[in-house]
């Protein structure tokens, strides 16, 4: 199955803010292991109305069957599953763990941030995913995210990034 034939031209201003409401951002979340960490990202997607609880189990099943490849960068896991009936609408979540958790990844462990991703189709989330990657790729922004005092501060970081990006 080949997904996403085209990626260009679908960047929309405010995409991250729209897909990442305050209910989808959680800070200082305690997690004993990687399952807890993924569950927290799933719970945030449920809270924001993006998915049902079944999607959380689907995200965990992905790691169980394919391993910890979802740890896409040092300290960052991108938890997601396929489009499924458990996805109500496209959404993202960000969970900052209270203490780093090992996912079993040889290079990128331990994980401090878990990004949850849900999409009802193969392409609706592409622009937001690109924005999120660009947002996290900047070391200063990542540091600011890791030290943001509250959810409002995280949202402001994202809005500032979007303003700068859209002005560029």
């Amino acid at each position: 199955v080949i997904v996403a034939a085209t990626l260009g031209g679908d960047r929309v201003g405010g995409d991250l803010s729209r897909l990442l409401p305050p209910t989808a951002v959680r800070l200082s979340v305690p997690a004993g292991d990687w399952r807890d960490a993924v569950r927290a990202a799933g719970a945030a997607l449920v809270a924001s109305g993006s998915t049902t609880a079944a999607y959380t189990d689907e995200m965990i099943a992905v790691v169980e069957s394919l391993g910890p490849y979802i740890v896409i960068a040092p300290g960052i896991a991108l938890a997601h599953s396929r489009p499924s009936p458990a996805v109500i609408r496209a959404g993202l979540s960000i969970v900052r763990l209270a203490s780093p958790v090992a996912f079993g990844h040889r290079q990128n462990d331990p994980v401090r941030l878990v990004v949850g991703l849900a999409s009802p189709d193969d392409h609706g989330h592409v622009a937001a995913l690109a924005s999120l990657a660009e947002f996290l790729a900047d070391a200063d922004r990542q540091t600011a995210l890791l030290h943001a005092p509250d959810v409002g501060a995280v949202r402001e970081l994202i809005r500032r990034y979007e303003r700068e990006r859209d002005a560029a």
Partner: protein
Amino acid sequence: MSVSAMPHDGLGWAPAQPNAILERRGSSVKILAVCGMGLGSALLLRMQAEKALKQLGLDADLEVTDIGTARAMAPTADLILTSQELADALGPVKPRVVVITNFIDLNEMVTKLGAAIAER
């Protein structure tokens, strides 16, 4: 008064364009980005590869696929982009496998993809 076969009109004349051939060769590089389901990390790989190719001034066909389909598609690709985990799961394949550790680090993508294409 000298006589020349070349017209001295200040415009000169255009040499043959070898670039056309190079560009054709460049666009024939087929890259397959592989992730577990073809829509999370593989999309990131594809986005990063697009940026890297632009930076390198190269052109390529980029496709995204999931691990289940990747083995069947591998023979048609020149390069495979994926994580170490999925490279291990994929096993031996014909195309060179470029393993990316940090999916959001553009420098890593530019370095590894640039080297892999240059060595083709």
